[in-house]
Structure formats: structure tokens, C-alpha cells
């Protein structure tokens, strides 16, 4: 091991030990029946859009919202079944099925919408939890100017603490876990909000209320 490592650790160990304080109790808020209302209010406050759908209606609602925005090329995992559902009436659906090195140009320049599932939602902060994998890679929710996420209402948690405990995150995290609360934004110029500075300008969440 390196000399720097040994020296740093030796200096830290030589210090007089202080007491290790206990973690005092802290209970983050819960919302009961108002969970979805809280989620919606928080996400809308940061310029996100929340639309309630069902497993029977979501593909059609998605098709119209993409059409309203003039999207002709979207990217989504093939197992979402969009091609079959739309039967040629919707935008072209491209799969992110090759390494980024081969997809970079399309991702950076062509794809107008990225469609992903959310693993869960957090009511307190209006947050989506994304757990990217081979079918829905990391950049799918970042490079296209529009991000549409599917959230099952049953996965909406009160707060981050509760969700982490419930899903036992500490037992194994993915390569990249994302908490997303709204579209990309900046206030670096005179604290004036501007959206879409590097990531999506728009975030739409379809909440599947029957799942």
C-alpha cells in the first residue's frame, strides 16, 4: 500500500479519540392517504408534470403526450411493448440495445424523448427512484430533452428513509442509483431559474394508479 495512505492513517490514528455520539431519533414525515397529493404538489413545484393513468390507458396517454410535443423518435426498452401497443400510430421507438459508444450520436442529437420505469417514488420530496439496468441505461433519463417515467402508485413511499429500509438498499446497490426530482435546472445566472441546462427540459410522470 502507498506511503501516503500509511502516513494519513497513522496521523489520524495518533489523534486523541473523541466520543462517538449516538444517532438521536429523527422521524421524517409521513402522509397517509395524501401521499400522491404530496408527491404531485412537490413535483409540480419544481416544474415536473404528473398524470394519473392505468395499466389499460397509459400507452395511449403516452402516445398523445408525445404527439402533442411533436416527438417523432423516442427511446424505450422493448419489453415495455410500445411498438405493439401503438401499431404504427406512434413515434418511432428506438431501443438502447448497444453500448453507448455505438449509440452516442443518436442519443446526443436525435432522440427526443426517453421513456423509463421508476423503481419507486418518494412523496416527501416529489422524487423518482431510478435503478438503471441493461434495458434502461443511465443516459436514457438524461440526454433526451423529454423524460417520461412510469411510476406504479404502490411503490410510492412516504420518505427516503422508509424506502431504503423497506427495499433494503444497503444489501446491494446498482451501478448507479438515481433520485430525480424534476427536470434539469440551473439558477446560476442571477438566481433566475432556467430549465434543461444539461439534462431534460421536461419531466412527465405517468402514475399507474391500479398498480
Amino acid at each position: 500500500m502507498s506511503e501516503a495512505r500509511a502516513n494519513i492513517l497513522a496521523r489520524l490514528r495518533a489523534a486523541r479519540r473523541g466520543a462517538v455520539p449516538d444517532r438521536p431519533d429523527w422521524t421524517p414525515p409521513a402522509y397517509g392517504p395524501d401521499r400522491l397529493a404530496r408527491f404531485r404538489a412537490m413535483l409540480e413545484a419544481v416544474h415536473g408534470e404528473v398524470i394519473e393513468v392505468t395499466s389499460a390507458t397509459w400507452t395511449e396517454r403516452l402516445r398523445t403526450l408525445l404527439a402533442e410535443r411533436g416527438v417523432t423518435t423516442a427511446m424505450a426498452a422493448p419489453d415495455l411493448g410500445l411498438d405493439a401497443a401503438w401499431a404504427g400510430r406512434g413515434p418511432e421507438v428506438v431501443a438502447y440495445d448497444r453500448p453507448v459508444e455505438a449509440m452516442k450520436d443518436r442519443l446526443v442529437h436525435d432522440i427526443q424523448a426517453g421513456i423509463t420505469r421508476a423503481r419507486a417514488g418518494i412523496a416527501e420530496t416529489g422524487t423518482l427512484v431510478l435503478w438503471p439496468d441493461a434495458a434502461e441505461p443511465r443516459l436514457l433519463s438524461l440526454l433526451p430533452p423529454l423524460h417520461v417515467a412510469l411510476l406504479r402508485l404502490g411503490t410510492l413511499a412516504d420518505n427516503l428513509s422508509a424506502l431504503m429500509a423497506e427495499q433494503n438498499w444497503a444489501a446491494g446497490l446498482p451501478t448507479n442509483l438515481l433520485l430525480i426530482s424534476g427536470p434539469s435546472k440551473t439558477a446560476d445566472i442571477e438566481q433566475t431559474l432556467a430549465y434543461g441546462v444539461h439534462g431534460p427540459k421536461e419531466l412527465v410522470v405517468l402514475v399507474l394508479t391500479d398498480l
Partner: protein
Amino acid sequence: MGDFTARAPKALNDPTLRRNFRRAMDGLMAKRALQFQDRDAWDALRARGAAAKARVVARLPELLEQLEARLTANGIRVHWAETTAQANAIVLDILRQAGARTVIKGKSMVSEEMELNHHLEAHGIAAIESDLGEYIIQLAGEAPSHIVMPCIHKNKAEIAALFAENIEGLGYTEDVDELTAAARRALRGRFAEADAGISGVNFAVAETGTLVLVENEGNGRLSTTLPPLHIAVMGIEKLAERLDDLPALLALLPRSATGQPITTYVNMISHPRRDGERDGPKAVHVVLLDSGRSRVHADPELRDTLRCIRCGACMNHCPVYSRVGGHTYKFVYPGPIGKILTPQLEGLDCAGDQPHASTLCNACVEVCPVRIPIADILVRLRAESIDPSGSAAVKGAGSMRKSLESLTWKGWALMHSVPLLHRLGTWALSRLGNLIPAAALPPLSTWMRVRSRPVFAPKTLHELAREKGYGNE
């Protein structure tokens, strides 16, 4: 250059700068206050966050080893650097071995501490800042003036002029959406062609070997996802012990910093790209930088400094910072946290002016989300700056000592410990004090430049008390 006191008038007499900071600080304070209206909830949350970071400081050596073991098991390479020079050399070496020529950077104060961009440029590697604020000041050739909002000292018109000059095809516009879109266009290509991404770290979780980065723009995610190589640089104190410490810390950081309940993105990285995954860097490296932090850790009182989560609330609420801005401090970390951190990292011999750039009003202590006793540490550092004993903890202790000053205080102490001298002294001052030509006597004239001259009463308090019939009871 001079010291802080010599630099301050320039900022104080710059009405544009004063306006830019006033507007920004007022806005940030108001937004933060809205987030913490429920006192009890704030107290409980803050106690939890402070304990989480205090535990990290108390258990630092073993947590660093745990973090290293977990990161390594996750496939992330860990490097240790005692100095910023070592850290720069490590980063350069990783980049060279990968054959990297261009780097895209997410925001990182540690990289500012390292002056990493200069180092890379000097060795033929172009490093482009991608956070909008950092991009703006990189175009302007300036340093950040705030640790969270680096270009807070600039207004729209100044940024519009800078962009018109530097971004091809963009005329002068003060439309913030247009300016932002122009930066997006200018930087998109840079992201796509960058050979490596460099970022900082907000929390590194020892339990799981996870790097947590918070941001609003998405440039941090791009820097850590799009290029084939990711290097994260962090101070050795930026740890969280367990994953379940994150909820409280993440609830404190953005609310304290910008009054947001959460940032747009919380980016948690635990592995390089694994088999079958389509994107993400194939190699991830972490550089753990000491650069004086282990020395800070050695002192049981001073080590509280290492709890800092870099939210910037202390500077937003500081009556000194909000009037002079970040550049007046001259060092990477301005404001209250800088005033206690910089002298400890750099030594009182070169940053001894910093702890004196304070009114000790305690506003920073009231808002600090991890309860750093900033005012106590300021006082301690002031004492050390004139302590010649050689037993003081901080490098450069005693360097601010002036013989006239110490002689004056010795005289003061003597006068207050010998009753006869005290009576003589106060009697003399009450009769003759108003005749002292203070405006012409150097130490007093300096003091009086910004204060009105006190007028001595014709009789001392003791004399008045005795006249009223009080004895020595």
C-alpha cells in the same frame, strides 16, 4: 494584495458587486428560512445530521479503511494523496495511462483547492468546466466567489457580454433561457468527445462503497456517465458512515444551501460499468485528499471543522461575506467556514488574517446544519495566531503576534490585577484620557478610522459608586 482588511475596501466601494451579493444573499436566506419553519423538526433533523457527521469525524481512520475496502470490492480504484501536488500527479497519471486528452468537469471545490485545471493544462490536457456557474467563471478566467454558486458575483449583463464574446454565433442577449441554451449547445459536444470526466463527491458511504453527488443541472451525471473514465476527487472527511445516514444529510444539504427540499439529481455511484450494461465509465477512480485535514483532525476542538458538508449557509448569512463577496478572502473557501478551515489547512502564517475577518455575531453557528461551533473555533484560532509558546496546534501559530500589542495587553492585565494600579490608571484616564491625541497615534488612529472616539467620563465608575455610598460589598 495585502491582508483581508486591506482588500475589503475595494469590494465595499464597488456598488455593482454589493448589489449582486445583496440580492443573492437576501434571496437565499429567505428561501432557506421557508424550509425550516418548523423549529422542532429542524432541531431534530439537525441533531441527527450533526451526529452523523460527528460520528464520521470520531471514527475517521476505520471508516476510511472500510470505504476503501468497499470501493475496491465494487471495482472502484482508490488512491491516497497527502498533498494537492500528489493528488494532481495521481490524476494526471490516470489520465495519461488512459491516453486522455480532454476532460469534462463537474463542480468540485477540492479540485479548486488542487488548482487541478491549471495543472492539467500545463501538461497538455484541456479541462472544461460544465457546471454553468463554473463554465462562466472559467470563461472569465476567475475563481469561484461562493462554494455553491460560483458566479454569484456576476450579474446578467456581465454574463451576457462574456457569452457574446466567447460563444460563436451568439450575439448579446440578457435572456436567461437563451444564455442557458447557448451554454448547453456549447457544452454538449464537449461531453460527447471528452476522454474522461472529473467530479467531486458530496458523501462517500463507507458501508456500501457508494459515491453520492448532488446537483441540479445534470452536468454532474453527464461527467460521471458519458466519458469512458471517471475520476472523483474528495477530501478524506467527506464520508457518511451508513446508507441510512443519507436521508438526514440529504434533507439538510440542499435546504441549507439553496432552500430546495432536494436537488434535481442525487447521483449514487457504486460500480464502474458492469458486464451487459450499456453505459457508464468502464473505470472509476477515487482520489482521497488529505492536504492538512489529518492535522485538523488531531485537535479535539478543531476537528469539528471536518463535519462541514459544504452547503454555504454560513456565508449566505454572514454580514461580512455578504458585503465583501468571496474574492476578498483570496482563498478557495470564503466566508465563515473558510475563515476556520483555511488557516488550519494553509497555516496561520499565510492565512492568519482570516479568523479576524469576522464580527463573531454567531449567525453562521445558528444556521450550520451540522452544528460546527464556528465562532468558538474563530476565537481559538485568533488566540493561536498570537500564541508564541510553540505548543499551539495550528501551523504558523504566533505569527500574528505584535510586540506593541502584547505589551499593551500585558499592561492591561497588570493594571487589572493590582488594585492600586487600577485606581491610578482609571483616575488618570478619566482626567487626562480625553487629551490623548488619538487621531495621530498610529495604533489608536487605525482603530479610530472606522469608530468614533470614546469619551472618558470625568469620574470613574468606582468613584461614582463610592459617592452613592456603596462599599466593597
